[in-house]
């Protein structure tokens, strides 16, 4: 049973690696759209709009529905619905910071922010995520990741 579980985790890790690989390709493609339309905001808008359109058939295919019980809007916290705004903050900040910091420092500062908050989310179990306390090996892992990103970005 334990063996099956760890095989599944490896599968999830491979999936995460693949999903991460998609991200720089998206940036490269969006950079071309940005030159084509002459505005980073309109380029992001096109990207989000196409994404929303693609999710309609995907949602229908996977879960056979596009609606949900409207009562959950009243019973859930308000911040549940604003995840998309955070995505926009991320995209817009990237666009603004890149010319100010350069590619290397932009990536490194963003990854540091991601790691710090992710460790806190796991540690405290925020947003209903399973709790996973911070310990020394995890901190060492964080430092290794940041050193790795610095090395890749600087050379």
């Amino acid at each position: 049973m334990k063996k099956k579980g760890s095989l599944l985790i490896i599968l999830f890790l491979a999936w995460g690696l693949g999903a991460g690989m998609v991200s720089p390709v998206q940036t490269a493609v969006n950079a071309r759209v940005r030159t084509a339309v002459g505005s980073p905001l309109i380029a992001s808008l096109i990207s989000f709009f196409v994404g929303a359109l693609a999710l309609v058939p995907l949602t229908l295919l996977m879960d056979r529905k596009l609606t949900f019980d409207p009562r959950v809007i009243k019973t859930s916290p308000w911040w549940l619905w604003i995840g998309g705004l955070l995505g926009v903050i991320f995209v817009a900040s990237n666009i603004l910071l890149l010319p100010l910091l350069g590619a290397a420092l932009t990536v490194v500062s963003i990854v540091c922010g991601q790691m710090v908050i992710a460790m806190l989310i796991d540690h405290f179990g925020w947003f209903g995520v399973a709790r996973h306390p911070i310990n020394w090996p995890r901190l060492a892992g964080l430092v290794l990741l940041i050193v790795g990103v610095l090395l890749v970005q600087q050379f």
Partner: protein
Amino acid sequence: MIVLFLIGGMLAGMAVPIQTSINAKMGRVVGSPYLASLISMIVGTMALLILSLAIDHRVMFDTGAFYTHPWWIWFGGGLLGVTYLTSNILLLPRLGAALTVVITVCGQMIMAICIDEFGWFGVPVHELDIPRLIGVLCMLSGVFLMRKF
């Protein structure tokens, strides 16, 4: 001044795992992680519509651009964004927030090195050297530590 920008970058980075955690929870509330992704994208689209109008005073562009640029740029970015966002929502409850960030960052760095090494998408060629290779090894050791403990 640069410290201010670095803090800005860190804050922007913090938006990502928070968004993923919120979306994962929304997926449970509305009963579908894909529907949560869709809601997130619609909210983002509306916010960008307002931002584009406020800052650029337009949401249109010269349609001549359709003929002068390759066809795949128009929906490539959106489809890849969906892959990234939806994968994150599905993986976070299974891997935890930290491991999800670490593994996707590894994927990003490996792909970035490939793009540089081969000069894909018109990027200038930048060959893989020893420091970059050590960087990738550092990151993979980081994943191992996070996974083990």
